[in-house]
Each structure stands twice: as C-alpha cells, then as structure tokens.
C-alpha cells in the first residue's frame, strides 16, 4: 500500500479535478461522442430509408445492384473506416496523454505476484 500521506480516495479526486485529467476527458469525449452520433444517424437513416422508401432503395444502378445494396455495403465501408480512424487517433492523440497521466499517479501500490 501507499506510503503517501494522502488517502487513496482523495488522491483519485485530486487527479480527477486536475487540468490534465479534464483535458484527457475532453479529448476522449470530443472524439467518441461525435463519431457515435454520426454512425448511429447514418445507420438509422439507412434503416428508415429501407423500410419507408423501399421503392427508392430498389432503384437499380447497374445490373441487379440497387441503391439499397450500395447503401448497405456503404455501412460496411463506414464501419471499417471508423475503426481504422479511431485506432490511429487513439494511438496518436489519446494513449500518450493517458499514459503520461497514469505515470503521475505513482506509488498508489505495487502489483502483487501473479497468481
């Protein structure tokens, strides 16, 4: 356990209220909330078009490939793209901040032996 004078709970509160942690939280939420809003909106747009505008979705573009299929495959494309973008963003913009902050919360305790 810690040798620090400050109890554990208060130390976490101090970290939580620090400038750096506020910045980390803003960084994280500033990315994931808008992206979540985007992919959910896009998904439900697709669902609503499918069910209430099926004639439009059935419009053939080439051969038997219609707008519905293209938009459906578009959902796959956006899912893959968001995954790539998020993973890169996290490694570049989030992880360094999170690790730096974790390192400052030192001596809370030492890991025990593996089980």
């Amino acid at each position: 356990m810690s040798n620090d004078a400050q109890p554990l709970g208060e130390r976490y509160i101090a970290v939580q209220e620090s400038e750096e942690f506020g910045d980390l939280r803003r960084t994280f939420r500033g990315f994931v909330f808008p992206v979540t809003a985007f992919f959910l909106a896009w998904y439900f747009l697709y669902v609503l078009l499918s069910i209430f505008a099926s004639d439009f979705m059935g419009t053939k573009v080439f051969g038997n490939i219609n707008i519905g299929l293209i938009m459906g495959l578009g959902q796959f494309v956006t899912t893959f793209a968001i995954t790539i973008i998020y993973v890169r963003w996290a490694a570049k913009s989030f992880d360094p901040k999170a690790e730096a902050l974790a390192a400052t919360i030192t001596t809370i305790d030492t890991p025990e032996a593996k089980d």
Partner: protein
Amino acid sequence: MTTLAAATSTGSPALNITIFVVFVVATLAIVIKVAGGKKTASQMYTGGAAFSGRQNGLAIAGDYLSAASFLGIAGAIALQGYDGFLYSIGFLVAWLVALLLVAELFRNTGRFTLADVLSYRLKQRPMRIATATSVLAVSFFYLLAQMAGAGGLVSLLLGVDGAAAQNIVIAVVGVVMVAYVMIGGMKGTTWVQMIKAVLLIFAVALMTVMVLAQFGMNLSSLMQGAVDKNPAAGDKLLEPGLKYGKSLTTQIDFISLSLALVLGTAGLPHVLQRFYTVPTSKQARKSVEWAIWLIGGFYLLTLVIGYGAGALVGADAINAAPGKANAAAPLLAFELGGSWLLGIVSGIAFATILAVVAGLTITASASFAHDLYNQVFRNGEATQEEEVKVSRYAVVGIGLVAIFGGMFAKDQNIAFLVALAFAVAASANLPTILYSLFWKRFNTRGALWSMYGGLGSALVLIALSPVVSGSETAMIPGADFSIFPLANPGLISIPLGFFLGWLGSVTSKEFNRAKYAEMEVRSLTGHGVAETVDH
C-alpha cells in the same frame, strides 16, 4: 429436382456423424492439452487475462459468429432476400458501440464479471444481484437460440424430423459443452473459439468462391439467379420490404429490430466477458479492431451464401427441409460439394454452436459464482476454491437449463431468437453500462430501475408478442394472448431502460464522490489495471 432429394436424405448420415465425432474429439483433445487441470478463479473465468489482442479478436469472432450468423442469416437472405441482410449490418455496426464507448473503459474498471464494472461506484449487493439476474436472463435467450440451431442442423443431416431425435441431439450438445467448460475453463473455451473462427471463415470463403464461380464471378448474375428461382418473390427479393414491408406494424417491427441489433452487442455479457481475457485496455481495443475486420468480412460473404442458397437450392426446397431457413447453408454446401462438403460445413456449424454455448456458459456461471454466491450469499468471504467449485456446479445447472429450453425453441428461426437476446441485453444492460461510465450523477436507484425495468419490460413484451402466442409459428401454438403487436420489444424497452436510469438517478441523492473519481480516473488512464488483474 436434385434439391428436393437433398432435402429428404441429405448426404450420408454415417459420414456426417463421423465428421461430427472427429470435430468433438479433436477439439476436446486440444482443450485438455492447453487448459486441463485445476484452476484459479481467474483461469476459470478469464483464462488468466493472458491472451493477446489478436488472439482475443479471433476468439470474439468465434464467439460472435454463432449459429445465428451462419445458419440464421444465410437462411434469412435466402428466403427474405434483402431483409435478411439487415441482420448482418446491424450485427456489424453494433461493434462500433463496443469499440468507441465500452471495450477499453470496461477493461480498465473490471476484472471477472459485468457486475464488477456496474457495482464499482454503486451499492455492491443490490447491483450484484440485479446484474447477475440480467446476465442469466440474456444468456438464457442466447443459449436457446444456439441449442435450437443444433437440433435443426442435426435433424437435417440425419434426415429425421422427429422431435425425439432432435431432443437427443440437443442433449448431446449440452453434455459436450459442459465437458469443454469443466475441463478447459475460459482458456480452453477461447482456444476452441479461435480454431472454430478460422475454420468457419475458411469454409464460408470457399463456399462463396464456389457459388460465385457458377455465376461468372458476378454478384448481379447471382442475384438474378435467386430471383429466377423464386418467382413468387421475384424482384422483391432484391429490395427491402419483402418480410417487413407488409404493413405499418411490420415496418415498426423492423425499426425495433434494428435498434436492438445495433445497441445489443455492447450489452451482451459473453461479449463483454471476452474483454477480460486480455491484460490491458489497449489489447481490448486491438481485440475489437480484429473482431470488426473478421466479422465484417464474414458478413459480406453471407450475402453471397444467402443469395447462393436462394439461387441454387431454392426457397421451396429450403422450406421443405427439416430446420427450414436454418437449413439453407447446409443444403447449399450439399449442392456445391456433395456429402463431403455438407459433412464438413455441418461439422463446423456444430463446432460453432459448441464454442458459442461454452462461452455463454462460462459467463453465466462466473456471474452466478462470483456475484451471487460469493459477493451476495457469502459477503465476499468465500475462498477461490469454493467459488470455482460453485461455478462448476453452475455450469452443470446451466447445461441442463439450456438442454430443456432448446427442446422447446427448436422450430424458431435462430437469427430471430438471437435478436430477442440482443433486445434484452440492450434494454437491461447497456443503459447502466453507459451511465456508469459516462454520467457523474448516476446512482444505485437509477441502475436498479433501469436494469429491472429494461429487463422486465423486454420479457413481458416478448411474452405478450406474436412470438409466444397467437401466430402460426408461436412457441405456444393454439393459445392467443398476444396483445403486443411487435415481435421485437426493443423499440419500447430500450428507451424505457434509458429513461428509468435517468429518472431513478435524479430522484435519489446517493453519490459516492471517492468511488466516482477512482472509477473515472481508472477507466480513462488504465491506472491500477495490473493490480486488478493480479491479486
């Protein structure tokens, strides 16, 4: 028609049984080799948190690409065309919720079970009870779907439609699954899931190439083939609305289903449990990244498999087969590669069911032993040995429940049954998970109202829906108390879960400042994870 012949005596039963036995023996041998022997709680529930992100991503794909994905979606696309495709899209997009909002924070704040996270800054006892209740309920629905898939699959292969034969098969699946979990714990189960994921993706890729080869590698021609084979549906097969466009009720049902699919994944206990099998949140992120690639790739292939079954086997033959829609993929395998391919594909589908059921059982038994037995009945004072022992009894109990439940549910479309599990998970678990991680004001009353309200409303609405009574395919034929028109309750029960979580929280003053700080700091920085894992 060769396809009609296929429906009545599909392949060679002796060959099929041989392949099944080979699969079971081989995977059991692997489980014994990698993970036999006595186990600590950590080894039993999380494989000691020692898997890499890539391994876990593969195991997640193995866990998630269940019988519903393979057999259910292929059948849905074969029969309902475009509407079946929606399942794949919802099941995939749902992973973004897990990737962006849940996986990493969840890994940073928990260790063994979902309740670890949900009770972190709330009152332990009531939260453990509520979470265990919800985990057991969701797992039950998911188990039903998998067991139903097993029964349908094997009855197809043995050419029997008799209830007794199917029930025996369901019982065998249950017994083998219990053996996997008892012997291998989470480590053994994870290995089975990884192996199965590789085999399944490989088999489906092979079938995709074989199907496309018959249509000059042209998706458009394949779709034309499906249309030509099904004149009753015609061009409607390619457009949305064949199943869900009939009336306003079915249209709303479609929206309800879509909501449940996209919000369900990140609330499924057995999916969340997988995030505990890796050591850090970065590895959890990597797990989801891999899972999205594998699962997305797989669902793209199911489009070809589904239309391929529609074009080469035909809707009439699928509907005539034992297992109906669930038989589309195996019948397609027979059409493409005769008894051998059918046997191999069915063996893989069978392994799929075993692996998924084993993962579900571990999660449910961990919740029972860790949350209910140890934390609630023994006030956290039980020894590891006692807890692991109880989890083993729980495995047997859950196996029995799954067997009897599966016997009841065997005629339902399994993709559809799984959608119900998603609805329950999204209503009962997701609101509390998100509020716990993101909303400062959240407290125990909000959590309890949300969990019991979400779970209760979802279950009641399912009981009053056409799924249970009052329709041709109802579970209780002959009776009719279906006063709720939608087959999927998500549209009502998910918003209700979120609303009750808010309402309960704002009417209660409870707030644990220190625990809130600890949870949020840990969730974002990963501080203290090593300690959480190790002791």
